[in-house]
C-alpha cells in the first residue's frame, strides 16, 4: 500500500487558497492573522504589500478608497483601510462556501 504516494508524492500539489483574516500595519507587517499556519507566510506578505500598494496608489490618484475588493475566480480578497494599514479578509470562492453577494442594497 502507499504505492500511489511513492509514484506521485514528489509532484507539486495544487496550491491551497488562504482562508481567514490578516491585519497589517502601514509597512505591510502582519500584526495578526487567523490564516492557517500551514499557508506560506511569504504569500501572505505579498498579499499585504499589494493591497497596501493599491490603497496607496488610489490615494495618490486623489481617489482614496476605504475598502477594496479583488474578485478572482476562486478567491475574494476584501481589504479595509486602517490608518495606513489594513484588515484583509481572504475568502475562497468554492462551491462548498456560500458566495458572498457583491451587490449591496
Amino acid at each position, binding site marked *: 500500500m502507499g504505492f500511489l504516494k511513492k509514484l506521485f508524492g514528489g509532484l507539486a500539489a*495544487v*496550491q491551497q*487558497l*488562504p482562508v481567514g483574516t490578516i491585519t497589517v500595519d502601514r509597512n505591510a507587517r502582519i500584526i495578526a492573522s487567523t490564516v492557517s499556519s500551514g499557508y506560506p507566510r511569504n*504569500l501572505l506578505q*505579498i*498579499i499585504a504589500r*499589494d493591497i497596501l*500598494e*493599491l490603497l496607496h*496608489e*488610489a490615494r*495618490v*490618484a*486623489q*481617489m*482614496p*478608497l*476605504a*475598502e*477594496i*475588493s*479583488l*474578485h*478572482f*475566480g*476562486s*478567491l475574494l*480578497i476584501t481589504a479595509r483601510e486602517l490608518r495606513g494599514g489594513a484588515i484583509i479578509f481572504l475568502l475562497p470562492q468554492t462551491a462548498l462556501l456560500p458566495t458572498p453577494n*457583491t*451587490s449591496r*442594497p
Partner: protein
Amino acid sequence: MDKRNKILILDDDTDWLALCRDLLGTLASRPEIFTANNARRALALIETEKIRLLICDLKMPRIDGLQMLAIVRRRFPELRTVVLSGLEDEEFRSRAYALGVDLFWLKTEMQRSSKLFNECLESLLGQADRDLDSGFRGIQSKSLMDIIQMECLSRSSTVLRISRGPLVAKLWLLDGELVDAEAEGARGEVAFQRLLAWKSGTFENLPAEPKHERTIQKSVNALLLESAQSIDENANPAGPDSVESASHRKMIWKLSQLTREGADFILATPPEGQGEPEAIGTQSVASIAHWSRRADEIAHRLGDKLEAGPLAHISGQNLERRVLLLSRGDKAFLVGWPTDATGNLPEKSRKLVASWDS
C-alpha cells in the same frame, strides 16, 4: 467702508492655512485674509465676501483643486486664481493653466521665496483692481457642449450668455435642467439647436432667474443627441464637419448611456503607450487612468502568484462613491457609481463597458 482686497486660501491642511495666513499678513496692501478647508465653504465665502483672489490647493478630498478652479472660472470669471500645490507634476501645472489660473506656485518654492511670491500676489491684486470693470475671462479649450454638460452635471442654476460676434444667445438653467433657450430670434428647443451649430464664441455666467418661464421639457441629453443628429444631417457628408459631428454624436450617445444607468463616470484606459485614456464624467483623467493601469497590473500579478483564478473585477468604495474596475480586451475600464446606486453593479458596469466599447 473697508476697501481692502480680500484673499481666500483654500487648503485641507489647517496648519498650512495658518502658515499662509501669517505669510500673507505681511503683504504691503494689507489684504483681508479668509481661509477655508473645503471647497463648499470656499464657494460660500466667494459668494458672500466679494473675494478678489483665490489661492487654492490641488489635492483635496471631495472636490479637488482642479474641479474647484473649473467651478470658480465659470461662476466667478473676474476672480483671480493662484494654485499653491505640493504636486510637482508638470501635467497638473499645464492643466491648471488650461483652466485659466493666473499663477501656479509650488508650496516648497513659496516657502523658499516668500518675498517673490508676495510680490506676485500684489501684482495680481493690482491687475484685478484694473480689470474689475472690463471684460470677461472664461475657460480655455472647452466646447459649448462641454460647458452645457458641466453646468448640468454640477446642477447649476444660472443663465449662460453666449456671444459670437454680433450674435447673442442665452440658456436658462435651473438645478442642472435646461429651462429655456434664446438664439437667432428663436426660443425653446429650436433656439437650442441653432445655438449648438455655433462653432466658436465666448460665454459668461449671469445670475440665475428662477422664475423664468419654462419652454423646454426634454432632458439636456436628449436635446444634445437630437441636435447632433440634426447637425449631422445638414452637414456635407464628405466634409471635415461630418467627422466632428459624428464624434460629438458618439460622445453624446455614450453620455446618455452613462446617465441612463445612473453611473457617475466611466474611464477607458488603453495599455501604456497605446493611446490616450477616454473618459466621461470625470476631470482627473490622467491620475485615475494611472491607478487603473497599476491596479489591473497588481491584481493580475497577485492572482497568478496565489493561483486564485482569473480576475473578474476590482471594486472599491469611499464615502462619496463606489468604483468598479474591469478589463475588456486590452483596455481597463473604471466605472464610478454613487454610493446609493442599487442593483448588481458588476453586471451593470459590464453592460455599460460593452456598450461603450461597441
